[in-house]
């Protein structure tokens, strides 16, 4: 799961001409003390459920808005949409691995020095940096006993695909 998350995070931002690189955590506790916008999206599949979390500084959201052609940055809207695109890409990857999931809509909060209260060992932050900004992602996944992969006959449509019926 962590490998997929790392790959889709790198792919998503590269697609918007925002190359990112893995970096160390901003603080020992994970997120730094600055203002973060944190978006979470729950997902559920056959025998698996969890949540994707994307945390971004204001500078990150402003850079993403500019890259998307936007002028005014609505922090909640931008981070919510990028978390949605991130989990959408992840959904495609997981489908290829035989793990179909359904997504909820993003829930987004803003605050100084945000902390996340999670059970230890469930998942860990992955941090990435662009020029002058950084972001954190994590993917919690809980597999039920008896979980099995499900083979899919058709490959999912990929980011950027346009299909006319």
């Amino acid at each position, binding site marked *: 799961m962590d490998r997929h998350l790392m790959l889709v995070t790198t792919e*998503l931002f590269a697609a918007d001409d925002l190359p990112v690189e893995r970096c160390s955590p901003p603080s020992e506790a994970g997120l730094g003390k600055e203002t973060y916008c944190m978006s979470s999206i729950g997902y559920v599949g056959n025998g698996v459920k969890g949540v994707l979390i994307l945390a971004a500084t204001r500078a990150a959201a402003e850079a993403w808005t500019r890259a998307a052609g936007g002028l005014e940055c609505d922090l909640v809207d931008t981070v919510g949409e990028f978390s949605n695109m991130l989990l*959408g890409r992840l*959904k495609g990857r997981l489908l290829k691995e035989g793990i179909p999931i359904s997504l909820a*809509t993003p829930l987004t909060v803003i605050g100084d020095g945000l902390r996340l209260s999670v059970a230890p060992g469930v998942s860990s932050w992955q941090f990435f940096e662009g020029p002058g900004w950084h972001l954190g992602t994590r993917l919690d996944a809980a597999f039920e006993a008896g979980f099995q992969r499900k083979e*899919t006959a058709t490959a999912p449509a990929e*980011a*950027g695909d*346009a*299909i006319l019926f």
Partner: protein
Amino acid sequence: MTARVMVIDDSMLVRRQVSAALKTPGYLVTEAIDGVDALEKLAGLTDTKLIVCDVNMPRMNGIELLEKLSAQGSAVPVVMLTTEGQPELIQRARSLGAKGWIVKPFKPEFLVATAAKLAPLGA
């Protein structure tokens, strides 16, 4: 001559991206934030020639909106613009009458080409 396109997405960022892409060649764009808002606006905008619609939205999602439009006998072509790429979901939208499926992040030229095919300017 222009043509009206309704863009339905709960993200302002996406609505603005789509609007900018479609306004450049001359489309008239109306925005809606979800399926409920879209149905209300469509009732008063009978000149709408194309709908560009997200799937995952609060209150009424894109698939539920397709069901409503299908039940109403709407002839306005709908293109889904979403992060989703699951084949079953694409097939479901197609069976409900959707005319296309674009996976975000999208290329503006693909969206404009799709609009030109389904709702040509000057027609």
